[in-house]
């Protein structure tokens, strides 16, 4: 099968959906001729024209609000938010407006919009261009939250997102834009709320999201060499969350580590770990471990930045300790 980059996968997903449905348009900064600073959208404006691939001023709250209104009135907008860190600017439009409209209107209005943005540190972009803010959105009822972990996942999940009739926020991993994976030529969709068992294992469950799926896989490689069999699970969407697949795995392995690139405290790892502790309590041999980004603003200095996010080595060390029964109390 052919391999394409995550960036190409996103581009294809959008192009295919836009061909299928004329009510879809995309807007954001430098999305047209420039094809975004990451060059993800190159070629789209040539095919779809400037009324469907719309360059906006640097007005994130404004164009997100415009997307909400367009979505309420028959269009299906895709918002391109250049950096996930800019979510803070659009929270009101996303969380007070888009997320609540369907409910507040008693089901009469709905907001079929997709907000595409990204997450991920270690690009030396410092504290305002490196955040992984998906936990914030996941906390607000009414928005679905999607975390693709490869080109294949990105394409299938984005197509599903575009067809969803609710507000969906999809976080791409910035560091993965040039990573290739096998992606079929034929159309496929990946349903929401269905976790992917990336690798089967028996000794420990590693739940990784987005960028952390690769980290978990690499950790599993390290562990395999130590004779430890790790099961790796990618939830794909954290709202909705496929609790069943995660719980089945942990009931089998009795141990779990949840790995996510958002800050650890009050973040995604806490929710998933809690659900595991609730649903697999009597199967657990040791407390569920959480590994998120450090609770610090992301530092610029490479010497510091790399310390802030989970790495395969650190995950493997934690997993080994867990399997050996060394983590009886807290870490």
């Amino acid at each position, binding site marked *: 099968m052919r391999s394409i980059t995550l960036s190409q996968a996103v581009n294809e997903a959008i192009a295919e959906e836009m061909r299928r449905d004329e009510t879809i348009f995309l807007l954001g900064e430098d999305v047209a001729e420039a094809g975004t600073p990451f060059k993800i959208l190159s070629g789209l404006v040539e095919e779809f024209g400037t009324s469907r691939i719309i360059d906006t001023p640097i*007005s994130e709250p404004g164009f997100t609000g415009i997307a909400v209104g367009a979505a309420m009135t028959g269009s299906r907008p895709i918002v391109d938010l250049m950096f996930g860190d800019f979510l803070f600017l659009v929270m009101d439009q996303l969380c007070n407006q888009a997320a609540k409209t*369907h409910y507040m209107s008693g089901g009469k209005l709905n907001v079929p919009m997709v907000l595409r943005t990204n997450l991920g540190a270690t690009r030396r972009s410092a504290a305002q261009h490196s955040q992984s803010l998906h936990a914030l959105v996941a906390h607000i009822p009414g928005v679905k939250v999607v975390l693709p972990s490869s080109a294949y996942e990105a394409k299938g999940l984005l197509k599903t997102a575009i067809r969803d009739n609710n507000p969906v926020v999809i976080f791409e991993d910035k560091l993965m834009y040039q990573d290739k994976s096998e992606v079929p030529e034929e159309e496929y969709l990946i349903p929401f709320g269905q976790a992917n068992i990336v690798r089967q294992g028996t000794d420990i469950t590693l739940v990784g999201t987005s960028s952390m799926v690769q980290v978990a896989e690499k950790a599993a490689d390290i562990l395999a060499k130590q004779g430890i069999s790790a099961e790796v699970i990618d939830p794909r969407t954290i709202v909705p969350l496929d609790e069943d697949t995660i719980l089945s795995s942990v009931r089998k392995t009795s141990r779990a580590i949840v790995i996510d690139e958002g800050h650890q405290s009050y973040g995604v790892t806490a929710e998933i770990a809690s659900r595991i502790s609730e649903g697999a309590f009597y199967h657990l041999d040791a407390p569920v471990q959480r590994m998120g980004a450090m609770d610090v603003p992301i530092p610029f200095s490479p010497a510091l930045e790399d310390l802030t996010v989970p790495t395969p080595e650190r995950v493997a060390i934690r997993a080994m300790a867990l399997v050996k029964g060394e983590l009886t109390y807290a870490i």
Partner: protein
Amino acid sequence: MTKKKTSNSEEYLRMYTQMARIRAFEDQANKLYLSAKMPGLTHMYSGQEAVAVGICEALKKTDHITSTHRGHGHCVAKGAEFKQMFCELLGKEEGYCRGKGGSMHIADQANGNLGANAIVGGSAGIATGAALSAKNLGKDDVTVCFFGDGALGQGLLYEVMNMASLWSLPVIYACENNLYGEYTKVEEMAAGELTGRAKAFGIEAFELDGQDVLAVNNLSQKLVARARNGEGPFFIQLNTYRYHGHHVGDINREYYRPKDEEKYWKEERDPIINFGIWLAKENIATTAELQTLRDQVNQDAADAVAYALDASYPLAEEVDMHVFI
């Protein structure tokens, strides 16, 4: 009053009726609050009727509006029924939003009302987006964004006016300057000229007596036609006044607003009284006919309240319905 055109008497009477309906609705809503039958608080539109009616009477059903926390007037003016409105205000299942939205989120999708909004200025993006959507989908619908003078404080408005101007969107920004945002005077909140805020983005802006329903309607007709024709966006500042407090519970308000001022607006500038006088003078309706009309409207409102008070609440099962479609 600016226009005499008795051939339009049906339209005139409709405007009068719509204004009277808003007033009747608000009087009942206020009573519900005062008799402790209303959950929460609500913001009365009384005094500003000529704005909502003058503008909405220039719109088609498929044209959209977005509204505010002070949204009952816009809702009535865009075609809503009393029963579903009162049911909504009382949190009943037959409300426009099944009781889930309430006064501050009342919406009436079927008549093009995209909803009230409890975030001041929060609907500026939505209105502009509806206009973009119409343009993109090849419809000739126009969107009116209602907002108060206080919303001029919100940066979002400037962001979307810029885009509306760049992209010539069919949207009309209708700024209802009722002189106050909550308990603060507009001049303490807004530097410069209000219309200048739109002109800065190359948007044609107008200032108008918001108590004169014919003036409002005339300008609206023109601007709506031009917006339909791709000549938008536009901005209208409508000078008006709210008769009640900021919300129904804002009773002792002399510390921020003199009684004299209220008296002047209510007695000299009332949009319904003055339009009634004009209708009589122009022989479009007699004073008695107008009285009958108002009585009917008041009765309708009272009946709707009685109905809504009796109507049932949504079932507990509904609580987690409509989070997602």
